[in-house]
């Protein structure tokens, strides 16, 4: 299930000391690649865009590292950071869980939004973070993303959203579901304003996020092998009672079936985005080649 996968990956990034004994402090500096089983020096991994130097597996990225990889240094200015988690169902233990998570992850919600420059071009970006309740979309995530979209409209800027999500946030119930409508309606406005929206799908993007803004990009990019789908693989298996095809719901599968434009490796992502933005920016007449 998506959730298990997210948990596993979480352990790699946030719990490096798990199963290590006091004697091997060094182990904290190493990480095992899920795919090729190679033991990789963490620093080497981070210097390689958090991509396995051996097999090319794209490790999961925190929003902080993602922003660092995409935004020009020092240009990211956060917006909607004051939008905080709400508890519309008064669901027992929810806000407490959120507080603990905030402390542990140093994040304040499952998405970070802001304006920045990407190879010198201004843009609004929203970057989801799977370390915070599996990147699930509750009312705060929906609100932040909607503010990001509206900021793009007001400032006439292109919009880039990096998605990673287990879907709508269960603990906020029906209010989470409605965030799908809120964010998608804002994308409709962005479209009317004629602005570019690049949606980047990363591992995993599922449920209510797939069924709203993530699938509505003018251009939809994905990272290699990212799991992308509406229903989780386990739910599908249980429903239809049969094994799923091997590459089912992988980025390559979606490309094959016509639902994404391009699979882009992480090392090329920033330049690809900046190239796309540039393509959609009207060239001043004086610069047009005669």
């Amino acid at each position, binding site marked *: 299930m998506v*959730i298990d996968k997210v948990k596993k990956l979480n352990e790699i990034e946030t719990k490096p000391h798990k199963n290590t004994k006091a004697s091997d402090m060094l182990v904290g500096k190493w990480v095992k690649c899920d795919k090729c089983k190679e033991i990789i020096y963490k620093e080497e991994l981070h210097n390689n865009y958090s991509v396995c130097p051996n097999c090319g597996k794209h490790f999961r990225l925190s929003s902080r590292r993602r922003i660092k990889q995409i935004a020009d240094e020092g240009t990211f200015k956060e917006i909607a950071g004051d*939008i905080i988690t*709400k508890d*519309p*169902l008064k*669901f*027992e233990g929810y806000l407490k869980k959120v507080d603990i998570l905030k402390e542990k992850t140093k994040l304040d919600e499952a998405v970070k939004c802001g304006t920045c420059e990407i190879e010198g071009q201004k843009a609004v970006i929203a970057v989801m973070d799977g370390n915070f309740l599996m990147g699930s979309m509750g*009312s*705060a995530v*929906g*609100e932040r993303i*909607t503010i990001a979209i509206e900021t793009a409209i007001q400032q006439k800027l292109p919009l880039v959203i990096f998605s990673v999500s287990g879907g*709508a946030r*269960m*603990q906020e*119930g*029906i*209010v*989470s*579901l*409605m*965030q*799908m*409508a*809120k964010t*998608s*309606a*804002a*994308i*409709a*406005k962005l479209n*009317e304003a004629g602005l570019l929206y690049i949606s980047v799908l990363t591992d995993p993007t599922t*449920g*209510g996020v*797939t*069924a*709203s*803004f*993530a*699938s*509505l990009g003018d251009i939809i990019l994905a990272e290699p092998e990212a799991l*992308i*789908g*509406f*229903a*989780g693989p386990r*739910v*599908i298996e249980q*429903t*239809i009672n049969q094994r*799923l*095809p091997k590459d*089912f*719901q992988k980025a390559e599968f979606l490309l094959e*079936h*016509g*639902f994404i434009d391009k699979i882009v490796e992480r090392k090329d992502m920033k330049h690809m985005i900046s190239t796309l933005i540039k393509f959609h920016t009207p060239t001043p007449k004086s610069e047009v080649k005669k």
Partner: protein
Amino acid sequence: MKTAWEKVQIARKIDRPKSSDYINAIFNDFIELHGDRNYGDDKSIIAGIAYLDEIPVTIIGEQKGKNAKENITRNFGMPEPEGYRKALRLMKQAEKFNRPIITFIDTPGAFPGIGAEERGQGEAIARNIMEMSNLKVPIICVVIGEGSSGGALAIGVGDKIVMLENAIYSILSPEGFASILYKDASKSKIAASEMKITANDLKKLELIDEIIKEPKEGITQKFEEITSELKKYIKTNIKDLQKLDTEMLLVKRYEKFRKIY
């Protein structure tokens, strides 16, 4: 007072009236129209044109079966992407001919299957939600039974959203919720009440506009009571919405969802 879990059972009853029953009772001269023009015709969504007295309208309804056999044909009211795309095609057609749209929501959710994923279930739902937020005709959405997840929302963005008294509207089934959050599917009863899924809950959360009372004797026993009530509501509201100019209609619809935080 019925518990949330009791309402779940009522909402799912096989003999509870389905979309086709409401269509037949409330509208005249319904002509069903088929197909998404891309892949197929999904029988878990029925759609077409009809008169609401003198007003031509477009109707979209999620259709469960009324018996085991029909449920197979209707896929238990769980649409595939082509069902949502059929709905969108006909809603765009409604916009072209300036017809108000009425949707009936009754689904356990969008179908989770291999084909559904191959044909972009997520994309189909996302597109419907986005397009509905911006269609230039009045839209009234009625939750008649089970409104579950994105599969319900995919035909649930409108100017007025109403629920029948014993209908439910939720992010997923209470069983699914219990197994994810309580790691115990048998806690569905608790989940049903914690999730806030009844018409009363949604009204309190200001997510719906109106609750249509169900007859004490039961909805099947006194079906004409509820259909005449519902017809009155739909007609009054369509007339009011038609008085708004398009810009105001769309501003209000945007605000309706924009304020949910």
